[in-house]
């Protein structure tokens, strides 16, 4: 319905002001037409009932209304097709002309109908131009004056002043209205421009993001390692297709599942469960630990993800990468078995060499002179050293193969120190070093542990300390760290370890670089074995060192009293 009226009322022109004026004019024309039609009907009905239809006045009135009707239609056409300005002017003139004959001259110039001339004044500034109000104030004043003079009455100057006052007000308000509208349009235009610019920028940035996200997804999809992204509550939010073949389970059984579901999965080897459990309970970020998954061995690495856009650098989840390690694990196992066999086979002949050398030393086949005995002792010492190295290799191989186990039983810490002294006192005194030891009063007399492995740890650390100390002492202390932990401290006054080397001293086959390697023998397995043994006992080993003043190893172990 609105559209129907709009098609009559609206005039499509480029200038929005012109369009607005022409629409207002059309509305006025419509109103006027309706009034005229109603007037025509009223005259016909009224004069017909009072038999005045044939009177000349009635005829003139009816003629007037018809002329007005055609005038209005003509003006509508002009407004619609040609010029709003001319149409408005013609309409206002027509209106003024009609008003001039709507009442008696005295009522129009001085009476009840005087106000009627204010209408063209007010309307003209709206539909013609703002200044047009003055034109129609003048015309109205002229008509009022002429009518007054035609019936010999005084001209109503107050009315004329009123007309001009109204013209002034109309002019001012129409002008402000037009200015306000212009400004509004300018603001709108700016706003439109800004919205458009922003839309463009947003679209461009969304496009970029989509391309970026697509690229990231493509990278993730093409990685051969299985990747799962977990949120803070350990729910899987994302996974790449490689995880499917890695874990042999469909993607939908990974995404939206909790990490705990994975831990409880039947394919996960029982002994790997604890490792994964510890990871989520203690929020650790292990790198490259092995788990058994069905027939496979997988290497698992976890990294926490931080939102670095926010200042507080909040942890938003964890990315876990699974790598198929089956082949490598097999090779490692083969290697370890090989080393174990070789070590075992090496030990038997070495035992024979050792035994024969001892027989020389003990003069089993007749008296020996001092030099011969001395030589036998050297053979024995070197054989012992070789055996020590082979034992280290064997331990390392067993640990790598996961075969080395810890046997926990009640033990006396004091006995650990006794056997240490029994073994190494002579080695220390040969280098003119003091080997001292003490036990914390708080430490229980009996506690649970693997005495053989603790002995091995102590021997390794103290042998090392003696090896790298030229003067002073090697101090061993067994202490109670806190309610749940006990510890071993081995401190020397030796040459110390350079700070750059500290992070690597527990690595397998590593000795601090340089002359040291040549002066002191050994594979560099001792500290690596210490660390692995301590870890197997759920403990921790730390090192502090100062060049030329000494090194201190501190081992912390869980305290269990039998």
């Amino acid at each position, binding site marked *: 319905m609105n559209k129907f009226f709009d098609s009559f009322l609206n005039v499509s022109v480029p200038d929005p002001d012109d369009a607005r004026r022409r629409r207002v004019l059309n509305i006025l024309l419509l109103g006027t037409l309706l009034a005229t039609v109603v007037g025509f009907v009223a005259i016909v009905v009224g004069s017909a009932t009072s038999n005045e239809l044939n009177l000349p006045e009635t005829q003139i009135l009816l003629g007037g209304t018809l002329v007005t009707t055609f005038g209005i239609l003509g003006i509508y056409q002009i407004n619609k097709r040609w010029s709003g300005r001319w149409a408005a002017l013609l309409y206002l003139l027509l209106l003024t002309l009609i008003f001039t004959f709507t009442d008696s001259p005295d009522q129009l110039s001085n009476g009840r109908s005087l106000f009627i001339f204010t209408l063209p004044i007010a309307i003209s500034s709206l539909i013609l131009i703002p200044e047009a109000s003055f034109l129609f104030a003048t015309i109205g004043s002229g008509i009022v004056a002429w009518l007054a003079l035609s019936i010999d009455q005084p001209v109503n100057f107050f009315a004329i002043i009123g007309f001009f006052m109204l013209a002034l007000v109309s002019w001012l308000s129409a002008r402000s209205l037009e200015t306000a509208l212009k400004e509004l349009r300018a603001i709108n235009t700016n706003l439109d421009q800004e919205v458009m610019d922003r839309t463009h920028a947003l679209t461009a940035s969304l496009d970029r993001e989509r391309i970026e996200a697509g690229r990231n997804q493509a990278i993730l999809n093409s990685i051969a390692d299985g990747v799962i992204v977990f949120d803070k509550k350990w729910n899987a939010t994302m996974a790449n297709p490689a995880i499917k073949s890695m874990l042999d389970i469909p993607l939908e059984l990974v995404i939206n599942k909790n990490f705990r579901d994975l831990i409880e999965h039947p394919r996960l080897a029982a002994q790997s469960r604890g490792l994964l459990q510890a990871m989520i309970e203690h929020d650790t970020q292990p790198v490259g630990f092995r788990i058994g998954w069905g027939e496979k061995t997988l290497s698992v690495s976890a990294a926490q993800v931080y939102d670095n856009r926010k200042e507080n650098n909040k942890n938003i989840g964890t990315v876990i990468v699974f790598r198929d390690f089956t082949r490598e694990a097999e090779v490692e196992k083969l290697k370890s078995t090989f080393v174990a066999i070789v070590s075992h086979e090496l030990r038997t002949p070495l035992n024979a060499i050792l*035994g024969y050398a001892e027989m020389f030393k*003990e003069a089993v086949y007749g008296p020996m002179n001092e030099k011969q005995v001395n030589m036998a002792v050297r053979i024995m010492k070197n054989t012992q050293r070789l055996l020590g190295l082979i034992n280290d290799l064997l331990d390392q191989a067993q640990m790598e193969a996961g075969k080395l186990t810890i046997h926990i039983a009640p033990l006396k810490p004091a006995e650990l120190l006794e056997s240490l002294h029994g073994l190494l006192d002579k080695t220390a005194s040969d280098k003119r070093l003091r080997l001292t030891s003490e036990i914390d009063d708080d430490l229980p007399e009996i506690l649970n542990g693997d005495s053989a492995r603790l002995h091995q740890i102590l021997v390794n650390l103290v042998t090392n300390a003696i090896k790298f100390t030229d003067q002073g002492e090697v101090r061993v202390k067994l202490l109670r760290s806190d309610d749940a932990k006990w510890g071993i401290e081995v401190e020397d006054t030796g040459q110390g370890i350079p700070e750059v080397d500290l992070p690597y001293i527990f690595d397998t086959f590593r000795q601090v670089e340089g002359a040291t390697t040549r002066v002191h023998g050994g594979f560099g397995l001792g500290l690596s074995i210490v660390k692995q043994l301590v870890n197997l006992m759920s403990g921790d080993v730390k090192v502090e060192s100062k060049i030329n003043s000494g090194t201190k190893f501190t081992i912390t172990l869980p305290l269990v009293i039998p």
Partner: protein
Amino acid sequence: MSELALIIEDDEDLASIFAEALRGIDYEVEHVADGKLAQERLKSGTAPFIILLDMHLPHISGGDLLTTIKQDERFENTIVIITTADARMGDMYRDQADFVMIKPISFVQLRDLTARLKPK
């Protein structure tokens, strides 16, 4: 009279060293290098005073021989010393043997131990 020591050991050199250690302190030494032969030997003949028993042997393992020894009351008073390079194996049979010696076994160590065991 010398006490009899039976050495069951497949490595000739080790057997020879053990034998020397024992002979040095007046043991009469008998050596068997194979599990099957050892089994045969245990069925008859004099019950040894000491048996040195290696765990890794051809044909019949030291563990099986140990079971045979423990089941035969002729060996009630025989001292069994397990000699092995495998510490875990040693742990496993510790309860059934009188002594466990982990290789490398020192000549002096074996000599001193067996000397102490000799009846005065």
